């Protein structure tokens, strides 16, 4: 519940530009300037094909070195796990890194070689706790360094985080390599910034899966309409909201506000929705879930605010909400609030 910033509180927190946007990374040796020191390497290569993880002194996006994962084709895996990094539970962190790759697939479809990253959150006893995970990286080769940027909310119980890059190849996969560099995990200050611009999108205008969900009468919205997911008539499939494909947002800091209503609040909390800020080129800028416990009252609209950082070259941002199928849920609007438009200096701080 606490992770969602209630709209009413926005006016109280007008600190845009005042807070330290880009704190130092808490993840050690993220640029591999000390080689692979602190990182844990794991390779499976039953056939002795030559899978390996090395530091690459010849290629770097930052500094002089990067980490390189090589799979020579055929069944094998390589995993590179970061040192356990101390984090503060309940706080936001911005994960950024660069990667590039060779081999993989010519079609951008899966061709036997997979690359992904995962986040593991651990408590003070270094036992895993549930929290937001990672994502797959491109199936196709990425010849030029690509910047990745994701905002994470550390679980309340979390005391450490471990980031892992994993590459796998099946018997059909071609020889492939991936490089990683400038991995940073930066504490992201809490609170909402001042709204520079606000755009309101009404989901009932058509940005939902019409095959599943329905535009309905709703006397509690400014248009008189909403989009509803009702287990009596529908099964969970597709996006209850999604498809805006916002292409005009400039790099900067934003928040997305999902205005939602739950029909009932079961005694036993259930995950009601998952949300994300999807992009064309770099996956999800932020993602999470909303539980029935996050609603204050059944049958009343409530705003759920989530933050994201938009780097250049995302092509589009698509705020989406997927329904779990458990409880009747309505969505009214998605609001995008621009809190900061990045200057060249900001972008340098973000990406260098």
């Amino acid at each position: 519940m606490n992770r969602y910033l209630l709209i009413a509180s926005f006016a109280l927190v007008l600190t845009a530009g005042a807070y330290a946007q880009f704190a130092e990374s808490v993840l050690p040796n993220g640029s591999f300037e000390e080689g692979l020191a602190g990182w844990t390497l794991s390779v499976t290569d039953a056939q002795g094909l030559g899978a390996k993880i090395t530091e690459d002194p010849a290629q770097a996006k930052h500094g002089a070195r990067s980490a390189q994962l090589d799979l020579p084709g055929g069944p094998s895996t390589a995993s590179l796990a970061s040192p356990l990094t101390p984090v503060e539970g309940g706080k936001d962190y911005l994960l950024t890194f660069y990667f590039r790759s060779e081999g993989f697939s010519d079609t951008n479809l899966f061709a036997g070689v997979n690359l992904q990253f995962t986040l593991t959150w651990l408590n003070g006893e270094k036992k895993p706790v549930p929290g937001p995970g990672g994502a797959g990286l491109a199936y196709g080769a990425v010849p030029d360094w690509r910047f990745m940027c994701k905002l994470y909310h550390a679980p309340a119980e979390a005391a450490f985080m471990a980031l892992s890059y994993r590459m796998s190849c099946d018997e059909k996969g071609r020889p492939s390599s991936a490089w990683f560099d400038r991995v940073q995990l930066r504490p992201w200050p809490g609170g909402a910034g001042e709204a520079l611009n606000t755009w309101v999108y009404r989901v009932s205008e058509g940005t939902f899966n019409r095959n599943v969900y329905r535009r309905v009468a709703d006397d509690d919205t400014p248009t008189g309409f909403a989009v509803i997911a009702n287990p009596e008539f529908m099964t969970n499939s597709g996006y209850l909201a999604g498809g805006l494909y916002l292409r005009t947002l400039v790099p900067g800091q934003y928040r997305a506000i999902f205005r939602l209503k739950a029909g009932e609040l079961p005694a036993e909390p259930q995950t009601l929705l998952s949300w994300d800020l999807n992009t064309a080129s770099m996956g999800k800028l932020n993602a999470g879930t909303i539980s029935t416990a996050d609603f204050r009252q059944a049958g009343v609209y409530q705003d759920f605010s989530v933050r994201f950082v938009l780097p250049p070259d995302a092509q589009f941002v698509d705020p989406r909400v997927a329904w779990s199928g458990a409880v009747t849920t309505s969505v009214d609007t998605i609001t995008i609030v621009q809190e900061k438009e990045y200057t060249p200096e900001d972008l340098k701080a973000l990406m260098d």
Partner: protein
Amino acid sequence: MKKLTTLALILLVAAALLPRPAMAEYAADPRAEIAKAEPWPAEITIPSSVPVTKDMYLQTAQVFLDDAKAKAAHYLQQPQPYPNMSFNIDNASWLAREFKQTGEEQYAQMSAGFLEHAHRLLVEPQTDIRNTAPSWLNVVELYFIEQWLGQSPAYTDQHRQWARAICRGACPSFGSGTEEYGAFNRSFHRAITGEALLKMVPDVNEADKWREYKEQVWDYWWQFRDQDESTDHYTALWFQYLLEWIQMRGNEQEFWADPGIKKVWERYLYQVFPMGVFPHYSDSTGFNVSWGHWIWIFEAAATHWQDGRYKWAAHRLYDYGANRIEKLTSWSYTGEEAGWSMLNAYEVADDAVVEKPREFDILMTMRHKGVQRPEAESRATRQSFDLQPEMATDKLIFYSGSDPDGLSLMVDAVGDAGHSHARRPHVIALADHQSVLLMSLGYMERNPEHHNIPLLADYEGFPYDNTPYYTKNNNNLLQEANVVDLGAAGYGREVVANYQGYPATLLREIVFIKNAGVVVKDTVTMATDLRMRWSPLWRVRNVGPDYGTNWINTYLGEWVPLRGLGVNAPVLTRFRNSPRDLLIYFLPDPEGKLELVDERETDTTIPLPIRVQYTLREDLKANQPVASVSVFIPHGPGPAAPLAQGVRVLVNDPLRTVLEFPDADGTKNLVVLNGTGAALTAGGLTTDAQVACIRHVAGKVSAVAMYGGKSIMFAGTEIAKQAPAAQENRVPAG
């Protein structure tokens, strides 16, 4: 006017003191909406061009001819051509046209100069090449430039070769796979390009494909002498292409002699409101957008058929458009392109043809039935619609004669058609005293609440078919449409199944009382039990100065805006409106609530920002109809309370409605809608009519209209014989 303003102010203050009633979240406070209203100016003066002559068309176009001359004086003196191919060819067109009109050689020289510059863009290296390549859109222009420059010495063999080089560059190949088929504007545009191209460059690449294509498009449409689109905007374009095409084909004599051609023209002749506007509908950029094109289209018909009805329509359109457009040059489509069409109108018009009113007041336009191909087939064949031999309904049209001040109404009754939407039976436009009272929104306003049709929605997510209107769907299926002229009144009805995608049928009945008002009864019958919110809905721009629990005064205001596509698009053109208000009165229902929804916050330029609806939240039962009745009473600007208080509801249930309303002239209009098949008695009236209208002043009956019965006993007298026989007018007939 001053008295009215004072009274309006008093009412506004009084309304402000009333407590805000309990309202849905989306409903605006009527008092706040009234406070935002744009007041009518104290006086609106609109010049007149009556009697219109063809010379006026030329005068209107002169601003664009002069502009082309000014551009020639500047750009042709520059060492480098202006780096835009269409700019040079467009100016060459205007100046070639001026040469044709005046015979002055200087304009031929200017035109030839622009052609030379256009050709230089083709052959000389350019710094900025964004707009220098020729487009297939230039080919028809080049053909006509050559026709107009004719034997001028300024247009040399070298110019002819340059024009052909540009044509070859514009159409290096046929472009197989991008062509479209069928009888509609885009296929016609490409086909006339082919026609012009083959005349200019007979051995152009893939000439056989161009030839086969244009003939295929011609042969297809000629089978039907019709086109498949239902939109004022694209239809006007289609007619323009057609008029150019027959000039190029050289078959004008055969064309104009063909009875099928008269039929398709007549359908649109009857869509011109007597005030002089062509209402916009379906995919259209807005109000009266193609006014200049229609003038050309109708002048051509007037001359070739020596038919004064078309002359009447063209003159009305000119008088309205030329005198009411705010700024002719504000947008090219309603300005320069309209001016170009007026040059064409000037050339074809015959002032000896005398204006003549149309025959019918109340009618239904007809069209060849269109059947939309499934999406996969449409993609594979590049044709979206098949025309059928049989005729189908198009629009219900209600006029009060040919007087420009007459009350006028158009309602959509079209089935599947190109660039159309499944919004049957929405009210396209209502006008009175040359004032627009109701109209459609534009191209991108695609939700049901954007149009003058009843809203129907459940609360729970019943799995209705929510296919968007603008794609092929099985919603709002037209099952019946009919209209009859009953003399003093007209009666229209439409039955629509799968209404808004629900298992529901909508019956919309319209009683149009000439020069008095309109009664619209909407009856919804669900095939299942469902809690629904539903309402008649009318889009307006302004409300006030007064309102009641079940009525509100509305008006469009001094300007009718025409904007670009989409939310917050800029206003491109405005037409000045005449002052007239519209009382919208809903017959009271215990469940009904007058609601206003203001969309200005999210769409600042929407021409009709306010939804006026009388909302009912009901547990609808299967096969048990429910109905809501709207009454429209146009009147002079000012409070509507005196009219609203004069409405008497004698009977109102889903099958029977008897009401009386006073119109602006003081006549009382007693209206009966009786779907029971049995006689009814109410308010001194006994009748077995399905529809009746009795107009009376001080107890004296001035007019009687009746449909579907034999007897009307009113105040002890049988008056049915005073009702003229009902006429079913269809245009085109047969």
